[in-house]
């Protein structure tokens, strides 16, 4: 509760023209934003730029921020919209847009990330990445960021029931997939345990 009060104070200072206050808001929130974005877009070098865009966008939207709402979910809502725009841009590239020549990164999954995640041996997160984006999104908000289902509904501007059913569907799919992997590893006689 106290932290929330401090956020609101920093917002008020920023609105009054104190840039340093906004810098403080940035420092308190950037790690969460960065990790979420990086996981969802799975591209290291674009993450940095996108995070900067998110904070610039949030700064410009600050006038519309309602101090009765919690700050972090509000910021995460902006983050999700920017990620959506990014994905849309990428998709336009993959769809043979005329700019195709400039980069074919639309199809190229960032190789280094792929490699690192393999080295880190995170098959579970690989499974998460294979879920439809809408499911990945709620799972990440819930288990990486620890947002409550109510907060996720606000962030994504969707009904609470939809959040619940998406989490439920995602866990169901993950259970199916991981049980296949586990039984495979047992048969190999190795595995994690």
């Amino acid at each position, binding site marked *: 509760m106290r932290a929330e009060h401090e956020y609101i104070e920093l917002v008020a200072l920023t609105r009054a023209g104190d*840039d340093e206050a*906004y*810098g403080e808001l*940035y*420092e308190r929130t*950037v*790690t969460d934003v*960065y*990790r979420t974005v*990086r*996981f969802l877009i799975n591209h290291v070098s674009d993450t*940095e730029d996108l*995070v*900067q865009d998110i*904070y*610039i966008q949030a*700064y410009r939207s600050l*006038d519309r921020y309602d101090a009765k709402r919690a700050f972090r979910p509000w910021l995460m809502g902006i983050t999700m919209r920017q990620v959506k*725009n990014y*994905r*849309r*841009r*990428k*998709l*336009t590239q*993959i*769809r*043979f*847009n*005329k700019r*195709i*020549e400039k980069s*074919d990164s*639309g*199809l190229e*999954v960032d190789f280094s990330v792929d490699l690192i*995640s393999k080295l*880190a041996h*995170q098959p*579970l*997160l690989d499974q*998460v*990445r*294979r879920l*439809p*984006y*809408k499911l*990945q999104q709620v*799972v*990440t908000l819930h*288990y*990486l960021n*620890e947002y409550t289902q109510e907060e996720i509904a606000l962030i994504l501007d969707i009904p609470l029931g939809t959040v619940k059913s998406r989490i439920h569907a995602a*866990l169901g799919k*993950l*259970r199916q997939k*991981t049980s296949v992997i586990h039984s495979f590893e047992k048969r190999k006689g190795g595995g994690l345990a």
Partner: protein
Amino acid sequence: MKLEDELRSAYRQETMKWSNSPGGKENMLKAIRSRSRGNRRPRKWLVAAIIAAVLIIPTGAYAGYTYLADDIYGSEQNIRVLGGTADDYNRLEAKLQEAKAHFSDHEFTQYMSLLKQLGQMALAHADPQGELHPEQWSTVDQEKYNQLVASLEPFFERLENASEQKEMMDREQFRTETYKAAEERLSKEEFIEFQALFENMEKYEAIVVDKDGSIHEEQLSVEQKKDLDHVREKFYSYLRQLGL
């Protein structure tokens, strides 16, 4: 371990060492400061709006869009004075048409009325190149300008979103145009190969792109990936040949 706990700990392990670069905050603040001082990167719609507004006012008539369109073409002289080219005007015409199609009548009237106010400011303050330097104005004017820009912002945003969506719809058209160019410039055999490559690319796209737009190249087998690289390379070299 329960799946939910496993997820939490997997996320924690994976992202533990991820953090934004130390210079991130300063860069972000720099970007914000330069924007609020008024020399922010001009947005394409804002620029169009200012040219539009500057043009509208000298005619003294603000009857509505039809009049403006007629007028634009009759006033190339004005264009040059303000450092614009005929191309700028064609673009502006297209943008206004787009806006008119996109907004309701009521919204369009509102949009044009805001542009008019912006135009009055532009007339009073623009330098010979037609550029605005709000940071040099009085605080009253600056405030008025910021308010205008802020009320125009939602309109611009909607227009930009609309054109983004349109880009995605343009795919069919892209295919038709590309085929046409390819047919003209390539030999018959090459054209046939090009068509096959195009279809191949679409086939792979259908596999790797989900309904919701996420890309999953890992769904391809090793052979398919190899084949895709091969197809892609050839396809791009054709596109380059076609100047696309």
